[in-house]
């Protein structure tokens, strides 16, 4: 498991063999924190690196996890998330971008050794990204709790997370970081469903079709959570029964799903969903959905959008 490290303890470990990597938007902040040159994840790791610090969002942290595993597996990796949602700082998972599709790779060697919690970094991210990060967290928790692989004890833990999430508004709050780490850890055990199957499939084609818009993973999870949960509820009573059994306020959950939804973005993405539907069905996450997803269910999503 990834252990928490305080910033002071991390600063005390920094020496000549420390290599700091961040995304461009956090480079200045990273330099202020560590007084070290800040690198990009597209750079090769030097040979003498013993401590790697990755500071950024899920994409940055995932890429540094890959770099460490491939080039310096003996080095210690410390992840510092600047936004919540992905849980990348504690997960043994990374999203692999092949150029034509995004898939998930799971390997214990990917898991960071430590994470540093600096929740104030979340306030440096714009309100729209904060909202998407909230949707990402909600999608992990809700898809995992109704996953066919969720055990009773895992459902109980996820229910605790969901009740906490229900008390938070969809913007920056320090608690989002810890709750998203928990949701991510639990979903790594239970798996997720169709929301993630759609997000993994559509991210690249939508980004290619609308390069000026942000069609990242978190936005897609936020966008499809309401329609997919509506689909699941129409086919199965699992979500409703789970909410009753674990004392989750179903009305509050439904309201959050509606708040996260964006009708015009849904319409904009619909042609892409239509075009890639078979790929969505083949995605491992879709195959783990809490209800069966069929070829002709595309019509349901088309009709739902029209309604």
């Amino acid at each position, binding site marked *: 498991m990834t252990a928490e490290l305080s910033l002071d303890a991390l600063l005390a470990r920094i020496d000549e063999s420390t290599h700091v990597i961040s995304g461009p938007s956090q480079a200045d902040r990273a330099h202020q924190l560590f007084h070290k040159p800040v690198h990009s994840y597209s750079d090769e790791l030097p040979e003498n690196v013993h401590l790697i610090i990755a500071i950024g969002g899920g994409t940055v942290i995932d890429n540094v996890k890959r770099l460490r595993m491939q080039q310096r597996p003996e080095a210690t990796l410390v992840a510092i998330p600047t936004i919540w949602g992905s849980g990348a700082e504690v997960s043994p998972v990374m999203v692999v971008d092949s150029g034509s599709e995004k898939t998930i790779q799971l390997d214990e060697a990917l898991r960071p050794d430590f994470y540093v919690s600096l929740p104030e970094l979340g306030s440096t991210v714009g309100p729209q990204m904060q909202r998407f990060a909230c949707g990402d967290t909600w999608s992990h928790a809700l898809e995992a709790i109704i996953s066919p692989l969720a055990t009773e004890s895992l459902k109980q833990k996820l229910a605790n997370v969901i009740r906490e999430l229900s008390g938070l508004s969809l913007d920056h709050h320090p608690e989002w970081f810890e709750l998203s780490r928990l949701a991510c850890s639990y979903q790594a055990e239970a798996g997720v469903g169709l929301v993630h199957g759609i997000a993994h499939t559509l991210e690249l084609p939508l980004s290619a079709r609308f390069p000026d818009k942000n069609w990242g993973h978190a936005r897609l999870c936020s966008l499809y959570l309401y329609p997919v949960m509506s689909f699941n509820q129409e086919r199965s009573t699992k979500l409703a029964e789970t909410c009753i059994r674990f004392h989750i306020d179903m009305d509050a959950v439904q309201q959050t799903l509606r708040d996260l939804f964006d009708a015009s973005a849904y319409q904009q993405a619909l042609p892409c969903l239509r075009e890639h539907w*078979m790929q969505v069905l083949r995605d491992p996450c879709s195959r783990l959905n809490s*209800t*069966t997803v*069929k070829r002709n269910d595309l019509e349901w999503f088309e009709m739902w959008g029209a309604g």
Partner: protein
Amino acid sequence: MENREKLKELMLDILLIDEDEFSFELKREDVETWDSLGVVSVAVGIQDTFGYHPSTDEATALDSVDKIIELLESNGIQFEQ
């Protein structure tokens, strides 16, 4: 729709195979998509379609269409010949 037809439709959707690839003699080893995820999908699909929730042991033992029919019949769901 009769239960045999329901099961056939379900397996086509879950395994993402065409009609000409399906038979009631189909075995797990014959289909690439009847992998470990396919085992879970089959269990979910049986519950959605026939209202019977296979236990974990039952689900992992379902390695052919024949065995699915056998399990459902032993739980009171009849399959016409």
